[in-house]
């Protein structure tokens, strides 16, 4: 995962609102991840077109935070999901 990578949720991985527990979750093969505010914000930006840099810039704008700082967090978060095969990334 690099700033130029274009991340996307692969088929079989989707966000879902757990209406019983009142929580947003990420569902994948044999996986249920509860999403916190950061996770939800990052995943909402995955459109299969934007690269990590563009996503980080949008989030930095939205949350009024330095891009460099946001980008580090986004990279780390997406890299972790990629290793679990819950996010796919292609080179931009």
């Amino acid at each position, binding site marked *: 995962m690099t700033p130029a990578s274009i991340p996307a949720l692969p088929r*079989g991985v989707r966000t*879902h609102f757990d209406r019983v*527990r009142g929580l947003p979750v990420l569902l994948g*093969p044999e996986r249920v991840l509860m999403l916190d505010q950061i996770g939800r914000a990052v995943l909402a930006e995955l459109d299969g077109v934007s690269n990590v840099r563009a996503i980080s810039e949008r989030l930095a704008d939205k949350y009024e935070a330095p891009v460099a700082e946001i980008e580090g967090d986004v990279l780390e978060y997406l890299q972790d999901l990629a290793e679990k095969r819950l996010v796919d990334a292609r080179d931009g």
Partner: protein
Amino acid sequence: MRGMADLPLAMLAELTHRCPLACPYCSNPLELSAKEAELSTEDWVRIFGQAADLGVLQLHLSGGEPASRRDLLDLVIAAREAGLYTNLITSGIGLTPKRLEALDEAGLDHIQLSVQGVTARMADHIGGYKGGFDRKMHVADHIARIGFPLTLNAVMHRQNLEDLPATLEMAVRLGARRIEVACVQFQGWALRNRSALQPTRDQVDQAKEVIRDAISTYRGQLVIDFVPPDYYSDFPKACMGGWGSTGLNVTPDGTVLPCHAAETIPGLVFENAKDKPLAEVWHDSPSFNAFRGTDWMPELCRTCDRRDVDFGGCRCQAMAILGDATATDPVCRKSPGRPLLDGLLAEETLPEVAPDLVYRRI
């Protein structure tokens, strides 16, 4: 107490016990239920809705072979309509390209394909079904063509553990994102075949090394989940993440169980989903409450610092080995039952040639 954390996340729906394969480690009970006793489509649709209302997020459609149910497509449609993440656990036998395409259309989320071996010779020997391996490979090609997310479930044991590297390569070749390397757990039919299936210590040590290397080799490409042969572990498995805490199981005739082997524990009375709503069974059934929390535990477990890590281990294993479902799982090094388990291990892995397999048949 009814807390949010105490709701089930997953349900295993054993749609049928019918299966073209006859694997000698089948997790189904020794006494299989007949087709006539199976729940109707309407029953299952109602149960899926109740499961979603109760908090279940993931539905595993299993068996037997779930493709043996003619209404599989209707069941997948209903499961998705109920909002459930729907996983099909299958041997592949009975899934024609046309059926797979219809399941794709219906929104099936994921397929878990079992593998009995990496060669036709081994796979058909274990599955007890000639030609099964070739058919499975054909199905796997169509799964890949359609683009279903795929997990391989490779059941490993004394007779095929040496093929572990080739099994991992097969997963990559078939385009799987994930592989479960599941060493046989001794319940159901596997218990009857334990001596033929129990790996030796050398095999286990080698397998662990292969897995360690493979996890780094395949990082980002293939997720590897390893279920170790637990007789060789020092501490018991956290069976079901704790009894009645995260999952439930519905059998072909509608019996609601805390785990697939729970019926081996005498004295427990199980409800049927035809008679009672799932929520009522989950919260109030004496069988679900039997081993919840820590009150049921022997002193050894209750005062142990691993109490909330492995929850005393597997109740069905304590029953099967020690004849006491309330005992510490004999896998535990601290258990007074451990010497008995060590004795079984030594005795059963001794013969040069493993005994013949007893196949699962209805």
